[in-house]
C-alpha cells in the first residue's frame, strides 16, 4: 500500500464536492457577520434548505427549481431570525440557537413523507462535480468583489464596523442587515440542498449532521475573508475526505484526535490574526453581535 494509489484528481474532485456545502453556508454567514450580525442558526437554515430543495425537486422533477426553493426557504427562516433580532431586538446568540432547534424540528416534520424517495438526478459536470461546485467558487469571487470593490459592499461593511456612524450618515442599518441575513439564509439553504440533492442524494432526518456548525468555524478560520473561506472549507472538508481515503487505502488513521485538528487549527489561526492587532485590521466586524437600536 502506498500513497501513489491515491489518484490526486479523484481526491481533488471529492474534496471539492465535500467542501461545496460548507463554502455556500460559510460564504453566506460571512456576509451576515460582515454586516455586524452573528447568526448561529446556520445548521437550522441548512437543513431547511435540504428538505425544501428536496421536496421541490421531487415535486417539479427539476433540481434547479429545488435549489431555488432551498434558497427561498433558507432566506425565509433567516428573515424570522432577522425579525426577532433586528426589529424586536432579541439577543442574537439565543435567537440563533433557537433557530437551529426550530429548523431541525421543522425540517424533520416536513420531511416525514420524503424518506425513501429518490430525487431527480442533478446534472454532473464531471465525476462528483456538479454545477454548484464552480458556482460556489464564483460566489466566493462575487462576494469578494462585492465587499472589496462595490459601493453597496462598502456600506455593508460600514454598517458592520460602526452601526451608529452608518446610521448617522443616513444608511438604513436595519434594512441592510435584513438583506444580509436573508442572503446568508439563502446561501445556507443552497448548501443544505447540495447535500440532499447532490452529495448524498436522499433525504434523511438530521442529515446535515453538524455541517452548519463547521461553516461557522470556517468563517472565523477565514478571518472574514472570502478567499480564505474557500481555503477553510477545503481544509475542514479535506480532513474528513483524506481520513476516509487513507483508510480506504489501508493506512488506518481514523480517530477522534484527527477530527479535533481543524478546530484547534481554527483557534490557532484566530489567535495569530488577533494577536497584537486591532480588530479592524483583522477583518472581524467591530459590531459583530451587538444590538443596534436606532430609537435609542
Amino acid at each position: 500500500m502506498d500513497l501513489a494509489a491515491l489518484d490526486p484528481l479523484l481526491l481533488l474532485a471529492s474534496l471539492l464536492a465535500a467542501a461545496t456545502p460548507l463554502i455556500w453556508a460559510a460564504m453566506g454567514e460571512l456576509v451576515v457577520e460582515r454586516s455586524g450580525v452573528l447568526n448561529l442558526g446556520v445548521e437550522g437554515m441548512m437543513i431547511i434548505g435540504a428538505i425544501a430543495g428536496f421536496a421541490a425537486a421531487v415535486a417539479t422533477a427539476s433540481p434547479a427549481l429545488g435549489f431555488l426553493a432551498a434558497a427561498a426557504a433558507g432566506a425565509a427562516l433567516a428573515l424570522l431570525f432577522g425579525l426577532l433580532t433586528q426589529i424586536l431586538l432579541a439577543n442574537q446568540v439565543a435567537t440563533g440557537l433557537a433557530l437551529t432547534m426550530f429548523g431541525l424540528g421543522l425540517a424533520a416534520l416536513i420531511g416525514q413523507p420524503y424518506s425513501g424517495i429518490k430525487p431527480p438526478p442533478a446534472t454532473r459536470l464531471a465525476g462528483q462535480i456538479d454545477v454548484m461546485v464552480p458556482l460556489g467558487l464564483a460566489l466566493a469571487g462575487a462576494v469578494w468583489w462585492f465587499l472589496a470593490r462595490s459601493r453597496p459592499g462598502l456600506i455593508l461593511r460600514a454598517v458592520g464596523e460602526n452601526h451608529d456612524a452608518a446610521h448617522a450618515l443616513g444608511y438604513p442599518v436595519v434594512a441592510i442587515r435584513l438583506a444580509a441575513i436573508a442572503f446568508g439564509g439563502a446561501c445556507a439553504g443552497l448548501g443544505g440542498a447540495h447535500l440532499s440533492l447532490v452529495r448524498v442524494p436522499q433525504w434523511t432526518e438530521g442529515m446535515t449532521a453538524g455541517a452548519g456548525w463547521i461553516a461557522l468555524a470556517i468563517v472565523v478560520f477565514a478571518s472574514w475573508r472570502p478567499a480564505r473561506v474557500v481555503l477553510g472549507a477545503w481544509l475542514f472538508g479535506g480532513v474528513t475526505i483524506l481520513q476516509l481515503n487513507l483508510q480506504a487505502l489501508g493506512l488506518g488513521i481514523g480517530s477522534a484526535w484527527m477530527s479535533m485538528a481543524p478546530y484547534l487549527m481554527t483557534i490557532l489561526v484566530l489567535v495569530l490574526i488577533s494577536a497584537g492587532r486591532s480588530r479592524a485590521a483583522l477583518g472581524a466586524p467591530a459590531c459583530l453581535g451587538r444590538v443596534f437600536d436606532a430609537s435609542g
Partner: protein
Amino acid sequence: MNITRRTLMAGTAAALALGAARVRAQAKQKIKAAFMYVGPVGDFGWSYQHDQGRKAVEAALGERVETSYVESVPEGPDAERVLTQMARSGADLIFATSFGYMDQVIKVARQFPNVKFEHATGYKRAPNVSTYSARFYEGRHVIGLIAGHMTRTNTIGYIASFRIPEVVRGINAAFLAARSVNPKVQFKIVWVSTWFDPAKEADAANALIEQGCDVLMQHTDSPAAMTIAEEKGIYAFGQASDMREFGPNARLSSIIDNWNPYYIARAKAVLDGTWESTDTWGGIASGMTEIGGFSDRVPFEVRKQAMDAAIAIAAGRLHPFTGPIRKQDGSPWLAPGETADDATLLGMDFYVEGITDSLPR
C-alpha cells in the same frame, strides 16, 4: 433458534443475569406494548425496522394490543425517564431497542417487577428482562458469497461504524465467505465512527469506489452508500432494511433485521402469561436475520449457491465460522471442521487471516 447463553458470559454479565427465573403471570385480555427507539422512525435503517416490528405486532394481535413509542431517545439519563414513564403508565411489555439502554433497562426493571422488558443487543438480563439480537453474521456469510462472485476488481469495500464485536464479526464472516468463492478477493475497510451520518457515509462510499471497490457492504444505518453505489453503477447490499428503493440497479440483496416474528411472539407470550426471561440470538432459521430478494443481476448459479448456503445455515448444517481459520496474525483459531463457539463470537476482537487492514485503535 433460542439459546440461553447466560453461562457463557463471564464476570459482570453473568452476575447481573440473575438466571432466567420464571415469573408467573396470568393470561391477559389486552396488553400495552411500548417501544423506545434511539433514532427517528424515519431513518430507514435501525429504528425504522424496529418500528416495522411494532406495526407487525399491531397487525397480528389487533384489538388485544395497544402500542406506542418514543423516538430519538438519547442513550443515558433520558432513556431511564422514558422507560419509567412507560412502565408507570401501565405498559405490560417494553422494547428498548438500542445497546446503550442496557443499564437503564436493568435499573428500571428492578423497580417494576411486573413489567416485562425486552432489550435489543444487550447482555445483561434479569427475571423480567430478556435480551435479543440477530445473528447478522449469518446474513453476512450469504452476501459475502454473492460479493465474492460479483466483484470484477476483486476489491470489496466495507463501511464500518465502531470497533465492537458485532461489527468485527460481520467483516470476518463476509470476508471468509467472499474468499471461499474467490481467493483473490481483498477487503478495504473504512471506519466512520458513527452509526448515522449520511454525508460521511456517502463520502466513505466514494472513497472506497475510488480505490477500486466495485461492491460495497456497510454496517451503518443510512441508505447513503446504496444511493452512491446506484449513481456510480456499482453494487451494494441493503443493510437493516431492504433499501431497494435507493438502489434499484445497485442492490444485489440485503440483510434485513426482521424483528416482526420475535415481537409478535413476545407480545403473545405476555398475553398468554407464558413470558419468561430468555436470551435470543436468532439467525436465518428464526427469520430474525432475513435475506432480501436477490437481484436479477446475480447469475442463477450464484443465486443458487447463496440460497443453498442460507438453507444450510438455517438447518444447522453450515456454520459461517468453520475451521480451518487462522487469525490475522497467523495464529491458529479454529481447527479443521471446528466451529466457533458463541462466547468467542460475542467477544470477537480480531480479524481473520487474509484481511490486510488493521483494526483501529
